[in-house]
């Protein structure tokens, strides 16, 4: 679903994040995200050559009340104004979102990212996966929409013909940008201090052998998506069948018309007027293909995650075997 940024000609080739931003995102999810779907927030920073530097972020409140829209814009404006007073970069460069087992390819994400990328060309969306992080390694990925997808979103032409023209597959929807974490010297000093004063972590989550729970959940989600996809495919098939049937009917009608006209000509009667066929045979509504693309992208994402997980676990199992062998 993601192609490396090196091959595409995008304005952003690498993302550089401050350590503090990472900690803030983790904390936001930990405190406010339990149970609910996603937590979101805004990223602030600046663009340096072909790098996007993210230097700060602030979270969004949850959409609990009805006047969510009005609240959001005002909240954002106030936040940015206040941050400007304390010399924090107030340039919007993107947004972040947490995800549940990797299910983030949705219409909402696409719309938001499109509006961001339209306004600010270099913006990215950071996807933070708390469950994967809890398993031992920080999972933070940055995505942008490919230029092709931007074109399509602008046109809003989601019919099959439109997509075929653009020749876009689910692999070319998002591009992943590599992330690098950077810490200033002062923060490094802080890290030394922390290491000194804190206890050694006694949980090595990464070497945990239990896998069935996580696999089950992922496969469940994968199955749901595949079901959605098959439904979508059925819809598309009925549409194409209807379309072809209608073509046939039109053809037949035209033929009959011509025959009758020929007959009338031979009898010397006035010809029947040419009726507008299009009004009689209304073409069926072509189903929007955007959802299919999104579902395909999501399925692909799930598969990638599952494969990564299984390869890690295989490694761990072989290690356990080696350990047992010495017993």
């Amino acid at each position, binding site marked *: 679903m993601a192609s490396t940024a090196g091959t595409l000609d995008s304005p952003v080739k690498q993302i*550089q994040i401050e*350590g*503090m931003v*990472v*900690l*803030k995102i*983790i*904390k936001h999810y*930990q*405190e406010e995200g339990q149970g609910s779907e996603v937590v979101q927030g805004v990223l602030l920073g600046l663009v340096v050559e072909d790098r996007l530097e993210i230097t700060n972020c602030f979270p*969004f*409140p949850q959409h609990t009340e009805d006047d969510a829209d009005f609240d959001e814009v005002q*909240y954002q404006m*106030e936040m940015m104004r*206040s941050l400007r*007073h*304390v010399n*924090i970069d107030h340039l919007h460069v993107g947004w972040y979102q947490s995800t549940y087992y990797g299910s983030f390819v949705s219409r909402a994400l696409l719309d938001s990212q499109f509006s961001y990328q339209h306004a600010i060309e270099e913006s990215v969306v950071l996807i933070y996966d*708390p469950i994967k*992080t*809890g398993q*031992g*390694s*920080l999972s933070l990925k940055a995505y942008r929409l490919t230029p092709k997808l931007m074109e399509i979103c602008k046109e809003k032409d989601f019919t*099959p013909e439109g*997509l075929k023209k653009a020749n876009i*597959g689910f692999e070319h929807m998002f591009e992943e940008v590599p*992330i690098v*974490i*950077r*810490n200033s*010297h*002062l*923060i*490094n*000093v*802080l*890290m030394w201090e922390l290491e000194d004063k804190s206890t050694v972590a006694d*949980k*090595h*989550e990464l070497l945990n052998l239990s*896998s*069935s729970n996580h*696999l089950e959940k992922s496969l469940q989600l*994968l199955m749901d998506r*595949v079901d959605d996809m098959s439904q979508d*495919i059925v819809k598309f098939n009925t549409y194409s069948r209807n379309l072809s049937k209608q073509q046939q009917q039109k053809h037949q009608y035209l033929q009959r018309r011509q025959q009758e006209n020929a007959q009338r000509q031979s009898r010397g009667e006035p010809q029947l007027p040419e009726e507008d066929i299009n009004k009689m045979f209304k073409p069926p509504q072509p189903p929007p*293909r955007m959802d299919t693309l999104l579902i*395909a992208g999501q*399925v692909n994402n799930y*598969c990638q995650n*599952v*494969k990564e997980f*299984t390869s*890690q676990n*295989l*490694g761990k*199992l072989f*290690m356990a075997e080696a*350990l047992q062998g010495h017993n």
Partner: protein
Amino acid sequence: MSVFGPVVKIHPVVLASICDSYERRNEGASRVIGTLLGTIDKHSIEVTNCFSVPHNESEDEVAVDMEFAKNMYELHKRVSPTEVIIGWYATGFDITEHSVLIHEYYSREATNPIHLTADTALQSGKMNIRAYVRLAHLSVLCLKNSEGISECQYVFYSAQMGVPGKTVGVMFTPLSVKYIYYDTERIGVDLLQRTRMTPGRTKGLTSDLSQVAGSASRVQDMLTTVLAYIEDVLSGKVTADNSVGRFLMDLVNKVPTISAEDFENMLNSNINDLLMVTYLSNLTQAQIALNEKLVLL
């Protein structure tokens, strides 16, 4: 020195924010101050968030933008309604007279606020992070010497003593500071720790088997240290310590003794599960790719 009062538990994100705001301070400002947010418990105070507040400090006066502080607190409250103002922080080594004034301000916002100092200028070679709480008002008995300059001679507890104290003083008592992490935070901090090693202070995010390899090598390092210690004890260089010996016994016993056959079975069934899932996901990916191509024909 006995510990007085509650324990202060700090999350690393707070300290990182403080360092960051110190780096971004205005020209000429020698220190930064800000508000601390968190939750209060019976025996501990947990500091989970903070934001910096613009202020001006000169020789004789100090001005803090309290309007700003109130505003920011409102905004933060909308995101996390459980956080309250529990105190304030300042960078720098010592507590100055201005700190007392600022502490007064904050007493109006929160009951018994704590004051956190972080020595970002590294005056003592390390970054000292300390937390203080204000003890009850103390009366200071001032004696004037012949030049008419007052000198503080004695410090008492106030109120009931009714000492005709001239000036009321404030004493800051240090509290013990602990760093606590959520699990995911711990993992994040571990990653950040690794930026210390590289010259550009940068670190990319690794994936897949390389992470498992990294973790395994860390465990290996730890085992090497333990082995070296055991060698030393055996050759008599280091005297044996019983408690360490007990830990070692625990360690060796932790590897469960399962018959080779049972272990083979378990291993094989697990591997089969994982391989099957990998095969299925590859199949699904091929399927959707095919579907894509067919539709776009």
